[in-house]
C-alpha cells in the first residue's frame, strides 16, 4: 500500500511527502482517523489533498493512504428518497452513528446493503449485452422504475442471470463473458464523479421542461436537457424558486443539491416533499427526489465535491432513459470552495481571488447537461439549473459572468422586485432564454399556433411600460394619451395577474400550461378590446374600474388548473361590460 506522511495542515488542505505513485483525484485516507480526502495536486513526491472532513487535531507525521481509485459514487437501487452529504454518505446513517451533530470519521456505504429489492430480469442467458444496456428492473418507488444497467465499461454474453426475485445489491444478478474474461454484475456499480458518463449522441433539446411557473414556462422557458442560471442577491427568492422547480417540474427524477446553503432549507424540503403531491401522478414528490446536502457549516471541501456527486447521479438516471432535473443551490458556494482551496494552495489568483480555472470548471459542469440518445438507445436528458449568489447582487462578478457563457437561459432575480414582494422576482427586462425557438413547436401544438406571438406581445407591452415610466418621471401620468395609459394598465395586469405567482398559495403555486395560456390570452385580449373602447372615446379610468378586471387580476389565485375554462368566462364578462359602457356613452 502506498503511504505518505503529512507535512503541512492548513484547514481542509493537507500536504504529504514520500507519496510516490499516487494518482490525481485519487481517493485517500488521511491521518490515523482515516478522514476521506482527494488528491488535487502532485509535485514530485509531495501530494496535496483536500480533506472532506474536519481536520481539527490532525498532526504532522500522520499517514495518508492511497485507495487506488478515484472519488466515485455508488449507482443502484436505494438512491431515491435518500439524503446524502457531499461525498454520498447518507445523512440518516451519519445520524445513527454520531447523533444529531455531524462528527467526522463515519465510514458507511452510500446504498443500503441489507435491503432486498424485487428484481425482474429483462434479458436471458445467451443474450449479448452492450455497455449501458438494461438487463433488468426494480420498482424502487411507486414513481420510479429503477432500470438496472450494464456498467458503461462492461459488455458480453450473458452466461447466467437470476430469476425474478428479491436480492440485495451485493448479490450477483448476472454473469457476463467476453473473450474468456468473466464479469459478475450486481445491481449497482461505481462511477468516478469527475468523469462524465458516456452516451451515443447528443440531441437538440426540443421539449420544454414544464415547471408550472408562468414567467418561466411562458416567457423564459427551459428545454429538457438545457442549462439555466438563476442569479440573485440575498432575499430575492433563489431558494424558493429552486424549491418550486424541484417540486413542480415535469422531470422523472429531481436531484436537489444544497451546496453551502442553510440547514433549515434542506429540512424544509425533507418535511414538505413527502407531503406535497406530484400534480401529474398524485404521488408524494419525495418518491422521485434525491437530496444532496452540504450546508454552509459542513466541511468546505465536500462543497466542492457535492456538485459532481449530484450530476453523476443525474447522468445515471438519464442513462435509464429518464428526464432528470438538477437544482444546484448555490454554485457560488461551490466556486468559493474552489477559491478557498486555491488560496490555501497559494495559487495565483485571477479575478476577486478566484482561481484562473474557474471558468473552465464551470464550463465542464454545465456541459454535463443535455438531451442524449443513451448507450441503450433510449432518450434521456439532464437539465441543470444553477443558482448563483452574486456578492451585493452585482451581476458583473466573476461567477455570474462566467456562468452566463455556458448556459442558455438566464433568470435574473431582482432586489427591487423582491422588496415589493413581487415573486418570483425574475426581472423580465434582463432575463432571456435561447430555448424559445426550440420549444415553440411544442407550445404551438397545444395553443393553436399563437404561443410565440402572445409571448412577444406580452414582452412588448412590458418593455413599453418601462419606457413610459421614464417619461412619466418627467411629465407625469396625466399628460399621457389614453392609449399609453392603457399600456400601463395592461402591464399592471400582466405583472399582478400573470407574472406574480405565490408559491404558498395552494392554487397559484402550480399553473398548468393550459391555465398559463388562457390567462395570458385573456389579459392581452382585454388590451385589444379596451383599445377599441378608447377609440370610441371611453377613458381608461372607466374601463379599469370594472369588476371583471379585478376578477381577472385575481384569477391566478381563484381559478384552479382544472377549471381553467372559467378564465374564458371572465374574458366574456369583460367584453360584455366594456360593450355596455360603449353603448351607454353612444
Amino acid at each position, binding site marked *: 500500500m502506498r503511504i505518505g506522511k503529512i507535512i503541512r495542515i492548513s484547514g481542509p488542505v493537507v500536504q504529504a511527502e514520500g507519496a510516490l505513485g499516487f494518482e490525481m483525484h485519487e481517493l485517500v485516507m488521511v491521518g490515523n482517523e482515516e478522514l476521506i480526502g482527494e488528491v488535487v495536486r502532485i509535485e514530485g513526491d509531495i501530494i496535496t489533498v483536500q480533506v472532506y472532513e474536519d481536520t481539527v487535531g490532525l*498532526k504532522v507525521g500522520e499517514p495518508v493512504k492511497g485507495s487506488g481509485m478515484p472519488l466515485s459514487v455508488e449507482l443502484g437501487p436505494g438512491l431515491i428518497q435518500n439524503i446524502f452529504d457531499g461525498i454520498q454518505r447518507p445523512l440518516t446513517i451519519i445520524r445513527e452513528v454520531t447523533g444529531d451533530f455531524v462528527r467526522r470519521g463515519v465510514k458507511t456505504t452510500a446504498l443500503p446493503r441489507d435491503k432486498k429489492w424485487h428484481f425482474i430480469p429483462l434479458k436471458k442467458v445467451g443474450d449479448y449485452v452492450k455497455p449501458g444496456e438494461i438487463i433488468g428492473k426494480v420498482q424502487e418507488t411507486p414513481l420510479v422504475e429503477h432500470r438496472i444497467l450494464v456498467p458503461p465499461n462492461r459488455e458480453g454474453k450473458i452466461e447466467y442471470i437470476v430469476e425474478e426475485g428479491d436480492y440485495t445489491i451485493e448479490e450477483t444478478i448476472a454473469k457476463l463473458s467476453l473473450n474468456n474474461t468473466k464479469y459478475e454484475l450486481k445491481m449497482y456499480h461505481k462511477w468516478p464523479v469527475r468523469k462524465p458518463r458516456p452516451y451515443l449522441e447528443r440531441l437538440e433539446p426540443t421539449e420544454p421542461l414544464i415547471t408550472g411557473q408562468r414567467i418561466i414556462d411562458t416567457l423564459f422557458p427551459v428545454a429538457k436537457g438545457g442549462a439555466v442560471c438563476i442569479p440573485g442577491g440575498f432575499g430575492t427568492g433563489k431558494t424558493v424558486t429552486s424549491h418550486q422547480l424541484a417540486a413542480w417540474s415535469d422531470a422523472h427524477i429531481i436531484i436537489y443539491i*444544497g451546496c453551502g446553503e442553510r440547514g*433549515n432549507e*434542506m429540512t424544509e424540503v425533507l418535511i414538505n416533499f413527502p407531503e406535497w403531491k406530484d400534480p401529474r401522478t398524485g404521488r408524494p414528490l419525495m418518491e422521485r427526489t434525491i437530496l444532496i446536502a452540504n450546508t454552509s457549516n459542513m466541511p468546505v471541501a465536500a462543497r466542492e465535491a457535492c456538485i459532481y456527486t449530484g450530476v453523476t447521479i443525474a447522468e445515471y438516471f438519464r442513462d435509464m432513459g429518464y428526464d432528470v432535473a438538477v437544482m444546484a443551490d448555490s454554485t457560488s458556494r461551490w466556486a468559493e470552495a474552489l477559491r478557498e482551496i486555491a488560496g490555501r494552495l497559494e495559487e495565483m489568483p485571477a479575478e476577486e481571488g478566484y482561481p484562473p480555472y474557474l471558468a473552465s470548471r464551470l464550463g465542464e459542469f454545465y456541459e454535463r447537461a443535455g438531451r442524449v440518445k443513451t448507450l441503450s438507445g433510449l432518450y434521456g436528458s439532464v437539465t441543470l439549473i444553477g443558482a448563483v449568489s452574486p456578492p451585493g447582487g452585482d451581476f458583473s462578478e466573476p461567477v455570474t459572468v462566467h456562468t452566463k457563457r455556458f448556459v442558455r437561459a438566464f433568470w435574473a432575480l431582482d432586489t427591487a422586485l423582491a422588496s*415589493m*414582494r413581487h415573486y418570483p422576482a425574475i426581472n423580465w427586462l434582463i432575463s432571456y432564454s435561447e430555448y424559445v425557438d426550440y420549444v415553440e413547436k411544442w407550445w404551438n401544438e397545444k395553443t393553436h399556433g399563437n404561443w410565440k406571438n402572445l409571448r412577444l406581445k406580452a414582452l412588448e407591452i412590458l418593455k413599453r411600460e418601462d419606457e413610459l415610466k421614464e417619461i412619466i418621471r418627467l411629465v407625469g401620468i396625466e399628460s399621457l394619451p389614453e392609449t399609453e395609459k392603457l399600456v400601463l394598465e395592461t402591464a399592471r395586469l400582466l405583472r399582478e395577474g400573470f407574472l406574480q405567482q405565490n408559491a404558498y398559495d395552494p392554487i397559484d403555486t402550480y399553473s398548468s400550461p393550459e391555465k398559463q395560456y388562457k390567462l395570458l390570452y385573456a389579459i392581452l385580449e382585454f388590451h385589444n378590446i379596451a383599445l377599441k373602447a378608447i377609440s370610441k372615446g371611453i377613458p381608461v379610468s372607466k374601463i379599469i374600474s370594472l369588476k371583471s378586471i*379585478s376578477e381577472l387580476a385575481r384569477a391566478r389565485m381563484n381559478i384552479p388548473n382544472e377549471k381553467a375554462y372559467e378564465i374564458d368566462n371572465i374574458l366574456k364578462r369583460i367584453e360584455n361590460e366594456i360593450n355596455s359602457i360603449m353603448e351607454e356613452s353612444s
Partner: protein
Amino acid sequence: MSIEYRTIQKISGPLIFVEGVSGVGYNELVEIRDPEGNLRRGRVLEINRNIAVVEVFEGTTGLSITSSTVRFLGKPLTIPLSTEMLGRVFNGLGEPIDGGPPPFTEEYRDVNGLPMNPYARDYPTKFIQTGISAIDGMNTLVRGQKLPIFSGSGLPHNLLATQIARQATIVGEEEGFAVIFVAMGIKHDEAEFFKKSFEESGVLKNSALFLNLADDPPVERLVAPRCALTLAEYLAFEQDMHILVILTDMTNYAEALREISAAREEVPSRKGYPGYMYSDFASIYERAGRIKGRKGSITQMPILTMPNDDITHPIPDLTGYITEGQIVLDRDLHRRGIYPPINVLPSLSRLMKDGIGKGKTREDHGPVSNQLYAAYARAQELRMLSTIIGEEGLTDRDRLYLKFGELFERRFINQGVNENRSLETTLDIAWDLLSIFPESELTRIPDYIIRKYYKRK
C-alpha cells in the same frame, strides 16, 4: 507534562510562529507564557513541517522571541457548561469576570461545536410575538430562526434588541427562556446599556453575558460567539430551554477576522476580507435551530452596523446569504422620528410563511402582509415621483397610495419603546389602513379573506 518550547521565530500582528515543534494538532489549544510570567491562550492555525502558526487570543503585545515560552495542550479550546452560568458575566473566552467563582461542573465542551445534521433538524414553525408590528405583521420571527438586525452607526438597534428580548413571548406557552448576550468589540456604555435594561426587565437572572469590549483583544472576538453558542447549545438541547442569542456587533467580528487573515498574508477577496468569511460566518449563524425530539431551541439575533449604511458591503451581504432574513433599520425613518425605524421593504423573514396563517396566527396574516408590502412599495415609488413632478401630476388613485404610505409609517411602523402590541392589534391596524383602498386595488388578497375582513371606508 507537555514540552515547553522557547522557539518563537516570528511575531506578526496577533500571530506567533513557533519552530521545531512535533506532534502538534491542527486547531489545538496553546498556552503562551509572556515575559512577566502571565499565561495567554491561543490556537494553532496552520502547521507546516515543524513550524506552527498560532493566533494569540489576548494579543501579542509584550511577547518576545527570547523570553516567551509556548506549550501545546493537545486539545481544542473548551469551556465549562452548567445552568449556573445564567445570571453571570464572562469574558470572550468564557472566564467569569463578575468576581464570582468559576461555574462548578464536569461538563466541558469544544467551543467550535459540530455542524447540526440537516436530517436531525426540526423545522422552525412556532411564532414568536415580539409585540412590534413591523416584525410580527410583516417579518415574523419564529423559534429557531436566525434573524439579524442590519443597522448603522447611531441608529437605535440596541434599543430595539432589548425591546425584543423583553417582549418576546410565545402566545399561550410558559417554558424556560433565557437570553445569551455576546458583545464583540462594542463600547463600554453600550454593554452597560444592555446590562441595565436586562436588569430592569428582570431578564438578567436568566441571561449569560459574554463581553469582549472595544479595548479588549480583537482575536478574543473570534472566540466569544463560539463560547456563547456552546453554552446556548447545552442549555437548549440538554436542558430543554429556549435561548435567544444576541450577538453584537458582527462588524467588529469581521474586522478581527480580516486582521488575522492579513497577518497570515492570505489572498484576500472583497475589500480585504478573507475568502472564507462566508464559511466562518456560517459556523456561527448555523448554530441556531431546533432538533427533532428535543424541546429547546436557539434563536439568533445578530446585530451588525453596515459600514456607511451600505447593504452590499461584504459583512451584511454574506450575513444575508446565511441568515433567514434580515430586519433593516433606516436612517431616513429615524430622522423623521419613527421608532422602530424599520424599513420593511428590504427587510425579510424567510421562515415567516411557516409560522403564520390559519391555526398558527390568523388566516389573513400572509395576504395582508403581502398587500402591505405591495402598497407601501408603490407609495414609495410615487413619493419619489411626486418630488419631481409634484402631486398634481398624479392620479387620484396615486394620491391614495401617498396617503397610505404616510399613515403606514405613522400608525403601523411607529410605536412606543414599551408598547407591546398583540398580533390581533397589528393586523387590525393593517386592515384599517388597507380599507382606504377600493377592493379592486387589493389584488394580493383572495376573495374569501376580503369578504371577511375588508371594511370599505
